[in-house]
């Protein structure tokens, strides 16, 4: 089918093929057209422009100005005053800073490996055929969608040392329960325990990874007389190492930024035992209005997270197995 546009030049340029091609060349000289690649590039950029603008506005600009503020004394009311590396050197002598870094490291180093291990074991358990499996999977995931305020309130009540559910269940088996959130020794373990209620996301990742483990591997292992533990350790675990890496990375990035639960439940106490890094950063910025000091803390956190993530990635070449995707 010929369209109007295709028929027109034929009628006009009755002279034939040569004439026509000359005409096209001339047209190109008069009105230079973009190459298809350039046109696609521009269209693509137009489509992703919301993100590009957002990236510059809410990421590049704040990250860069955060770096600038970190070298200034700035309380919002007066203009920022350049003070060089003083914020950083002050931080090195700030006991509260080291305390918050210690609390966060403690929390991360225990919570993340614990939760990845539990998520792996629960994933394996829930991957087996058994009655009620869909309900169990829903049950372990549901806590993840609960708003953090609600989670914090429910657990404060569970942790209540006099009337709370936890200590009364411990009393049933003859154990005198600890004061949980009320004690500087137990407050961090309490928050770590609460975090295990929220491992549903990692469990789902493991369940998905377990789907991809080839059945014949297990059959071959059974023929060789391998028991359940050997199969778990030598087949299942190596095959789901990509999921382990993913859970470790996202878990660590999240744990380094633990804030809302501690803010609501303990407000950093008792005796600053749950004053985590971001909590102290928040207090510096929004309570004491030391924006420069808070920005220096933000950049130190950025660098710590970057280094830890890179080290985890680098090490993963030695322990993550990427053969199971097919």
């Amino acid at each position, binding site marked *: 089918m010929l369209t109007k546009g295709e028929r027109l030049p034929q009628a006009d340029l009755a002279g034939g093929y040569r004439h026509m091609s000359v005409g096209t060349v001339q047209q190109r000289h008069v009105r230079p057209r973009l190459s298809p*690649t350039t046109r*696609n*590039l521009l*269209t*693509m*950029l137009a*489509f*992703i422009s*919301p*993100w590009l603008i*957002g*990236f510059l506005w*809410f990421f590049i600009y*704040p*990250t860069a*100005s*955060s770096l600038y*503020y970190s070298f200034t004394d700035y309380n*919002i009311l007066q203009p920022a005053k350049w003070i060089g590396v003083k914020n950083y050197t002050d931080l090195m002598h700030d006991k509260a800073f080291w305390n918050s870094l210690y609390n966060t490291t403690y929390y991360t180093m225990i919570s993340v490996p614990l939760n990845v291990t539990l998520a792996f074991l629960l994933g394996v*358990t*829930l991957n087996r055929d*058994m*009655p*009620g499996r869909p309900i*169990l999977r*829903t*049950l*372990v*995931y*549901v*806590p993840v*969608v*609960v*708003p953090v*305020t*609600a989670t914090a*309130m*429910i657990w404060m*009540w569970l942790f209540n040392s006099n009337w709370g*559910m936890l200590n*009364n269940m411990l009393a049933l088996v003859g154990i005198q329960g600890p004061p949980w959130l009320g004690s500087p020794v137990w407050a961090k373990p309490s928050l770590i325990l609460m975090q295990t209620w929220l491992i549903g*996301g990692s469990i*789902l*990742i493991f*369940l998905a990874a377990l789907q991809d483990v080839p059945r014949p591997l297990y059959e071959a292992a059974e023929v060789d007389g391998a028991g359940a533990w050997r199969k778990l350790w030598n087949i299942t675990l190596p095959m789901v190492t*990509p999921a382990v890496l*993913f859970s470790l*990375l*996202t878990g660590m*990035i999240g744990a380094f*930024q633990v*804030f809302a639960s501690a*803010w*609501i439940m303990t407000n950093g106490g008792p005796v600053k035992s749950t004053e985590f890094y*971001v909590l102290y950063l928040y207090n510096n*910025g929004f309570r004491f209005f030391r924006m420069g000091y*808070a*920005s220096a803390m933000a950049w130190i956190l*950025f660098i710590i*997270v970057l280094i830890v993530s890179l080290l985890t990635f680098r090490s993963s070449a030695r322990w993550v197995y990427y053969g199971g995707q097919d």
Partner: protein
Amino acid sequence: MARLQAADLSGTLARRRTAPSLATVVSRAGNVALTMLAYVVGAAFFVPFFWMVSTALKSPDQTFLSPPRWLPWPVVWENFPQALGYIPFGLYTLNTLKIAIPSIFGTLISCTLVGYGFSRIRAPGRDLLFSICLATMMVPWAVTMVPVFIMFKRLGWYGTYLPLIVPHFFGNAYYIFLFRQFFMTIPMELSDAATVDGCSQLGILSRVILPLAKPIIVTVALFQFNATWSDYLAPLIFITRKEQYTLALGLTYFLDFQRPMWNWAMAATTVAVLPVLVIFLAAQRSFIESITITGIKG
């Protein structure tokens, strides 16, 4: 042939009649034990919810009993109207919706466009930009928190809902990723055919892709609703007056007492949790697919 089969069959029967080996017994016992363990774990995950609802239905003297009663008796339904009347629950819900609805709208517009650009237009540099987009997910929000606050304060947006809404019109790396993954499953031939028919990219998006993309649109809308409903930090930083509070902020009112009224607190918490629970249970499948897809990709 028939004899052979019969012999085979009798062999199987004979094997079945003999006592199962020790290994089979152990593995069967192990299976039962694992199933029981799974039920215990499931129950443990359920206990906090049970405790929340049970407390919400107790009178104060039932609440502060030691040892506690598992089930409330008599059931005190009045806790619900009383708790919801104690804090301006309706106002806080309305405030939350005032933020949630425009946020969902902005998220859907921006992430659809960007997801389309990242998946269905072949252009140099596209995948590099997409990797940068993904990498921003790894950066702690605490890094940008202070300067973003300063910026919004200078714009005069501090104390308004704008800082909680406007950023959603500029995309979210995770939702962009979800849209992109979904769009990539739609055959390129559909786009090519539309191009031949003279359709522009925007036309392809609205006439070819969007009608197919309903599942992902619904999923992202629900994710964003949950995110706004649950968000604590951003309202904490940007909202100044109590009558502007969102539900997530307002719930903590119950903690201000010397000795909190836990039955009321749990009643209000139950009502606050209900919408996200209902949404999750209704859309469970697409939620779970969207979460697992990140793990596979990652």
